[in-house]
């Protein structure tokens, strides 16, 4: 097949092998005057013999199941034609022909080629080149088709959109398996097909287009800009709530999701980085948390792949040491609620999610040198996760004790008040206080034992505060021992 392509007679009606070449060879053999007639006859004959060898070699090529003729095919052909093979050429080391510009005195002879003989510096080869021993022939097996369907595994070529040739089916009239439209051979320019199908071309383009990344439509881009500007304060509340409502309910935002998630993350980082004591930052953070919760609410969105990007903003807001004072409690509460929301939705698909968040929160709660804000956030976060988390963190993990010690010696400022409040709230979640509290009686034997245990579990600071309600204390203790 190759030879047919390369030797279209139209390009060289006078033959491949030029009379001049015969003359050159004759001169090299010291036959200076060779007549035109003889040279031309010899040229024709040489060409015929070359073709003979090539045709013979093509058989060997075909039987070797190759589409490229190699020097070994020529060798085999020469052998069966009873001619000495040309030694020294190997298919895995093909000779490289270099072209020399045509000589001015012999322009008719066209380009001159020579075989490049590279000089090899042994020193360099030994020093530099690492010779890797090739691995032997090995095989791999894969399913090319399973019950007539080609599975999309890496071993198979990518699927091609099927060409629905409905028109053909209509014209044909023959019961043709509709939709079985024969998928064309995979387009590839260097495919060894002798005839590059012309009609495959549009499909090729189609496929190339598919490889291009999906682009956001103009409408979505516009929506994105309008949305983000509407959300970020200062804007009026109606606009903002409208934007959030849109996020919460609109379908078709999937394409925007990665952008929104990124926007939220960047916004949170930006607000917290500046030192974040301004009132505006607090508002922004609140809005961003709202956005996250709106995204989680939207049932048409597939958020799961982006959870790992959504969690950092929530946890950052929750555990950041210095939130804007006016909004701190509110923000932490909202963040905790959002976290709880997220966990209820997705912890079933990712069982490892809540343990991992727990770990982060516990570290913030118990770890030394953490600010009160962080501690408070951790406690609120644990509340968001659930009772079990509070038990583990505040009671069993010693969170209450740590905070208690902090509070005993710390300044009695706003931060401490909210922190204590949060712990109390957490304890209230763990076990609800009774309606008419009766304090523990220090004289009563049973009560003092309870008090003792309460001190062990919660530390002095909180034990004292809880001790005012007998029933509650008992409940807390009971919960903490349930494990």
């Amino acid at each position, binding site marked *: 097949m190759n030879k047919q392509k390369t030797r279209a*007679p139209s390009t060289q009606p006078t033959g491949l092998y030029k009379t001049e070449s015969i003359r050159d060879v004759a001169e090299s053999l010291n036959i200076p005057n060779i007549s035109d*007639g003889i040279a031309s006859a010899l040229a*024709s004959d040489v060409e015929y013999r070359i073709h003979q060898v090539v045709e013979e070699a093509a058989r060997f090529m075909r039987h070797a*199941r190759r589409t490229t003729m190699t020097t070994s095919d020529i060798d085999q052909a020469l052998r069966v034609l009873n001619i000495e093979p040309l030694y020294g050429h190997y298919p895995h080391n093909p000779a490289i022909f270099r072209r020399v510009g045509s000589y001015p005195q012999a322009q008719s002879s066209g380009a001159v080629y020579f075989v490049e003989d590279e000089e090899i510096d042994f020193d360099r080869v030994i020093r530099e080149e690492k010779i890797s021993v*090739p691995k032997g022939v090995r*095989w791999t097996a894969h*399913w090319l088709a399973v019950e*007539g369907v080609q599975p999309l595994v890496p071993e*198979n070529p990518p699927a091609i959109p099927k060409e629905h040739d409905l028109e053909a089916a209509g014209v044909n009239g023959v019961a043709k398996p509709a939709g079985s439209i024969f998928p064309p051979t995979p387009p590839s320019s260097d495919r060894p097909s002798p005839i590059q199908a012309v009609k495959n071309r549009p499909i090729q383009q189609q496929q190339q287009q598919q490889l291009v990344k999906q682009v956001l439509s103009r409408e979505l881009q516009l929506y994105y800009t309008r949305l983000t500007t509407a959300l970020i304060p200062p804007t009026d509340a109606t606009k903002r709530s409208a934007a959030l409502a849109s996020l919460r309910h609109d379908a078709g935002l999937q394409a925007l999701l990665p952008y929104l998630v990124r926007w939220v993350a960047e916004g949170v980082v930006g607000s917290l980085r500046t030192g974040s004591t301004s009132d505006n930052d607090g508002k922004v953070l609140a809005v961003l948390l709202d956005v996250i919760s709106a995204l989680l609410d939207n049932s048409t969105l597939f958020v799961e792949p982006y959870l790992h990007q959504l969690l950092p903003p929530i946890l950052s807001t929750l555990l950041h040491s210095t939130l804007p004072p006016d909004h701190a409690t509110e923000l932490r509460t909202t963040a905790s609620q959002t976290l709880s929301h997220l966990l209820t939705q997705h912890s079933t698909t990712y069982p490892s999610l809540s343990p991992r968040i727990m770990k982060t929160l516990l570290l913030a709660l118990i770890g030394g040198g953490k600010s009160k804000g962080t501690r408070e956030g951790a406690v609120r976060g644990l509340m968001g996760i659930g009772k079990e988390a509070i038990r583990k963190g505040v009671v069993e993990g010693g969170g209450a004790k740590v905070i208690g010690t902090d509070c005993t010696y710390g300044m009695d400022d706003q931060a401490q008040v909210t922190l204590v409040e949060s712990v109390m709230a957490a304890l209230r979640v763990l076990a609800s206080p009774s309606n008419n509290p009766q304090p523990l009686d220090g004289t009563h034997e049973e009560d003092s034992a309870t008090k003792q245990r309460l001190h062990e579990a919660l530390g002095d600071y909180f034990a004292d505060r809880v001790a005012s309600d007998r029933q509650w204390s008992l409940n807390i203790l009971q919960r903490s021992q349930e494990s």
Partner: protein
Amino acid sequence: MSTATPAASTPEVSSPAAANPPDPSTSDLNATDKLVLDYLRARGHSAAEKLLKESLEASSPPGQTPDPSTSTNTISPEELARRIAVYAQKPTQPGQNALKDSGVVIQELGSMGNPQDIQKLISSIGAVGAEDILSLDPTDKQDGFRELEAWVDGSLDMYKPEFRPILFPIFCHFYLDLIQQGFKEAALRFHEEFSHSLRTRHNQVIHHLSTLLLPSHVQNDELAQRFRNEKYHIRMSRSGFSLLIGWLTEGVGGEGTGSGDGFSGERGKRGRAAVMRVVNNHLKFDVTTSNTTSVSPNAWEESTGVLAPLIPQTGFKDAQSYNVSKGDLKLGPAPLPEELQTEAERELRERALVDRDPNSQYDLQYARQAAPPGVVSPTLSDLPPHPPTFKLVDVKREVEKVRDARKRIRLDPSVLNGVNLNTLQGAAARARALPSICAYTLHDVGEGVSSCTFSQDTSLMAAGFSESYIRIWSLKGEKLRGYRNDFQPNNVKDVASLRKQKEKGGSTTRKLIGHAGPVYAVDFDPIGGSAEPPKYLISASADATARLWSLDTMTNVVAYRGHQNPVWDVQWSPMGIYFATGSRDKTARLWSTDRTSALRIYAGHLSDVDCVRFHPNSLYLATGSSDWTARLWDVQKGSCVRVFIGHQGIVSTLAFSPDGRYLATAGEDLAINLWDLGSGKRIKKMLGHTASIYSLAFSAESSLLVSGGADWTVRCWDVKSAGGLHTKSRENGVNGMTNGVNGTENGTEGAALTNGSSKEQEENIQTVDLVETFPTKRTPVIDVQFTPRNLCLVAGPYLAPEQR
């Protein structure tokens, strides 16, 4: 041109060197003439001899004859006549009118269509006969062919497919004429001008002809001689034939537009005369009674060709009549010896009891294979001789065969008809129709892997490499261990002690070294069937041997020598013991493992035997050849019982359907033909592959055909569907494709292409029975096989992109 044309100092002698005249080197004119005369006398060409004598007497030794291409008008009539005489002696065409042929010589002297020169020439040589010379004007071939083409293209659409095949043989003969007369340049010009329109179908032959440049080449070339000596068959309807005759004699019908004024009158007549000469001498018309429209357009062309030598015996009009004369074949399944049959049934019944399988009765139905209606089953005595007793492995094989038949995945592509594949039902239909295909890809194959096969129990895979070795892999991951070198037969008492004699260690792959050339075919012995791993492997190689390898010892056991040339293919007979090889020496041979010389030689193909396959009942052997035909041989008698003519290229691979009724052949014309063995007729032609087809396999029910090829695809074909082309793609083929090709190929040939409006680019056309195409990444599929349970296995080497 100057060489081939009789030059002055060595007239004629150089040009008809083809005719084996005396030593051309001699410059002594008289001696040469004498030799020529002697030769003529010896050959009995008395007329020519006389002519030559006369001319010799009349002529003074011509001195410096000028270069014929520049000043032919000075040639003397004597000289001319002498040349004529030389042509008359051509041994290939004895008995031809010397004068007629002589005109050809004049024409070549006529310097390529310079009418003035010719007029002068004619006036100078009244003796020979102006009429003849006129009719053999050198331009007549160009003109004649152009006129013929215009006539064919100008004919009615319904006749076009019928007339088009005439162009090709006339083209070939014109070209050969020009070459033989030494008009190399005129021939090349002729080739350049007219070959394009024929290239789509006859690329190989046209290319081959274009390599012939000297008269001696024509004389020595096999194909050219076949054209010269044999009639080229053309099929035509009665009405078409009479139209052709009308045109040839009267010139009616075909005054093609744009043909120019030269086509009417004298020149047109001369051109037609040239065509007429080829028609008379080299063509043979089969005038069919069938109506023009009732024959499909492609059929006209495919039944043409130099058919006579392809048909094994003379005296038959075409392949079909030969096939009919050979009578009926016994295509039914091979019978089992009665004892083996009962033993296998007993075994099956026992197993059914053990398994508490209620379907045992069902099993036994499979055990008794019945021939399909209308097919004759052979008797035991028809089969090639096999050992009279059977072994345990035979029973196991037969039992396993029945179990396989029961557990087989049934594939029925006909359910796909009229089903929308995008629906749920479509998916279900697809699952029922199409197989699961497991692809084994070979990596890092180096120079190339030329053959690959799987054992029937799919425990082993073997591949033959260009680097002269064979590699075997265990697909089950078991270690392949041969027996130790110090094998002691005395120590073997039972299975355990035999196992002890095996080598230690080992790996899951083994290299078998022994061949001295690329290994072109490998095949595992079928005795174990799907019940046991094979014990032997047979391989064929370019070193002209077939070798038998024992898989117990992992060594070469026998080398079968006999072929003179590379052995292209080898296959075991379905029951083992025998195997067949096909070789470049144009023969296929039958061997048995216990003899080192061939049992039968199947000779008759005109070119290489590229592939051999046994009929499932082992009574027949099919061979595919480079002479574009496939033949079916009676294995025992060694006679050819069917010949299948229809491919327009080398037959590269074959497959029998398991039910024994069909043969599928794939050719380098990228078509797969399905033949009915009983009648020898072609059932259909399947198109779709875009590069060579390497392997074919039928599913166990013979309902689905799978093919793999160099276009990196595996394709599934519905055997039972009627086939045929898509109507739409056909139209594309005629109009769209030619234009497309116009742009992609050389722009210079634009003119030639536009007037050949119906040259279909068949390669881009798919027939409707192509059910599905599964592309691979970069793997030419060199082996396709079905397991007994209808899982399809394919294998091929991965071609790394940089390799190309």
